[in-house]
């Protein structure tokens, strides 16, 4: 394994793909411009040179190449699909929801569909309304699907490898702002985490912030600010959104007695609507403070960077929400 360049989130994904392709000849990749272009976000890089027959450039046909992945999975392959931007997953919903996710159960266990759908999500880059969305919440209600969102380079690779080895369809979301993040500490810093397990990123006694993906970065920054004000924020990274680690969330909220639920997607009907509800149903009598959600305003994401900032969540909003749940 080359160590010349520093490892990044992007490279961790690359090495994970490469390792799985090396040890399992059934693993194939399908996506747009993932051969010589190396993928829009340069994740697949030179894999097509190492595995020329196993890296397929698809025409711009999102729904059908996702369906092709399902078929190839039924045929015995493990398929990693790349959807260039999560916004385009709108085109592939039928094959994800009605084929990939249902087959194992509806066919009474005769088949499973070991596909991973990798796709970059999220904003803060001025890419505008059709290239910036965080649409994870839709998939919370899709039975049979798993949803995994790494938030740092230390876990990204192992999570992707586990996703590929998982016999179930996994939606694997990569925040665009994370690709360049360095793996501090090199390979030794890598950590393995099973799918379905959350990660306690920072302990704190006063308020729990439940989040995922890039939200972890915002939560940590807010926590830094609040720490100076004497508020201990516990940051919990869900990592797997579906099926999520309810026990860990409940345990943390029971400890702190209050919680802020943070995501980049639209607040209304977001991923955190589920988490906040689950906490309200299960931990109501353990609360000594409030519950609050922070996320994007209920608007399309404007292109103008100044406007985008106003629509997407930011650190001050997280700080304010923490303050709010502490006022009883």
């Amino acid at each position, binding site marked *: 394994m080359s160590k010349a360049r520093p490892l990044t989130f992007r490279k961790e994904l690359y090495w994970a793909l490469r390792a799985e392709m090396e040890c399992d000849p059934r693993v194939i990749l399908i996506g747009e411009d993932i051969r010589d272009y190396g993928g829009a976000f340069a994740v697949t890089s030179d894999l097509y040179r190492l595995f020329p027959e196993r890296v*397929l450039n698809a025409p711009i046909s999102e729904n059908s190449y996702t*369906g092709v992945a399902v078929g190839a999975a039924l045929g015995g392959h493990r398929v990693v699909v790349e959807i260039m931007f999560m916004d385009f997953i709108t085109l592939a919903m039928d094959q994800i929801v009605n084929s990939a996710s249902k087959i194992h159960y509806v066919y009474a*266990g005769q088949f499973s569909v070991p596909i991973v759908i990798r796709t970059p999500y999220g904003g803060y880059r001025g890419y505008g309304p059709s290239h910036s969305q965080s649409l994870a919440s839709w998939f919370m209600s899709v039975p049979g699907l798993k949803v995994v969102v790494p938030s740092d380079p230390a876990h990204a690779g192992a999570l992707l490898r586990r996703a590929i080895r998982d016999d179930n369809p996994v939606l694997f979301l990569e925040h665009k702002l994370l690709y360049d993040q360095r793996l501090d500490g090199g390979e030794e810093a890598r950590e393995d985490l099973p799918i379905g397990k959350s990660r306690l990123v920072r302990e704190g006694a006063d308020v729990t912030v439940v989040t995922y993906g890039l939200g972890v970065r915002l939560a940590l920054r807010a926590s830094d600010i609040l720490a100076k004000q004497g508020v201990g924020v516990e940051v919990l990274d869900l990592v797997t959104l579906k099926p999520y680690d309810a026990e860990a969330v409940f345990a943390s909220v029971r400890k702190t007695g209050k919680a802020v639920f943070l995501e980049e997607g639209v607040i209304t009907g977001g991923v955190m609507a589920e988490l906040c509800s689950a906490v309200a149903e299960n931990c109501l009598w353990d609360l000594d403070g409030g519950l609050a959600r922070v996320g994007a305003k209920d608007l399309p994401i404007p292109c103008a960077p100044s406007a985008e900032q106003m629509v997407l969540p930011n650190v001050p909003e997280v700080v304010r929400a923490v303050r709010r749940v502490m006022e009883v």
Partner: protein
Amino acid sequence: MSDTAPNLALPAGRYEMMLMIRLLEERIARLFQEGKIHGTAHLCIGQEACAVGAVSAAQRTDPIVSTHRGHGHFLARSADPAALMAELLGKVTGPCMGRGGSQHLCSRDLAFYGTNGITGGGIPIATGLALSQKLDKTALAVLCFFGDGAANQGTFHESLNMASIWNLPVVYICENNLYAMSTPIRESMRVSEVADRAAAYGLEAMRLDGMDVDEVREGVGVALRRARAGEGPTLVEAKCYRFCGHSKSDRLVYRSREEEERWRRRDPISSYRERLISRGLRQDELRQLERRAAQRIERAYEQAQAAEEPAPQQVLVPPYRKVDTGP
């Protein structure tokens, strides 16, 4: 005559299978009327020659991807009406334990990769199965059924294109029964034949009489051989007609009784019967075979009827396969 499955390599076997399909579908129609099946189903009465012709041309391990109108495809491959009946009646002895029903009927053992409730939804799946065969260098080719209506779905376009550029071993069989539900093909496309679209993907096209089981068998056989030889996919169009309504709620207002009559005169089963007789098959042999077919369907119904409904612990299970081994 022993009670082995009809041998589709033989004309009499194909005849018997077509008849079984017809009788099965008619039985199902009755079960709906009697309120013994819930939900809905799309019967393939009139289209039996497509199913039997195509499936008979394939090897038993060639993957099949079917449609919402797929009982015939399933029976032609399985020769097991009890399994189908059980699935429709929601019994645990159905291959999907009743979860899939008519529109999501699947059998791993039979390489039958599902009927499909989404019009056009099976086309990419079949294409992916063909990709698997190519990558694994198997000698298998995929049979992908769909209707004329599905040929207007984006998946048709996208999938046939991919099969063509990747040169995949798949035979696309359009059962063109002239209507998508109530919509006549002339109102849903401006080409007179679906096969006219093959050229848009650089695909071979083949036009067949879908009312003639032997013509379908031969044509699909040629296409399968091409696929196996690495010569790429074919779009086969089999013109046929459904004698029944689209589904149980169909009042058939959109086509004329004359048109129906014209097609009924070309009934794939009775016309094949005549052909067999003219080729020397004896009437009493045929009658025996017909009795047997009817018995099979009746026994299948009884068997399925006697089976169990799923218990809660069979239904309320996680929708995941439990495997998560770390790297």
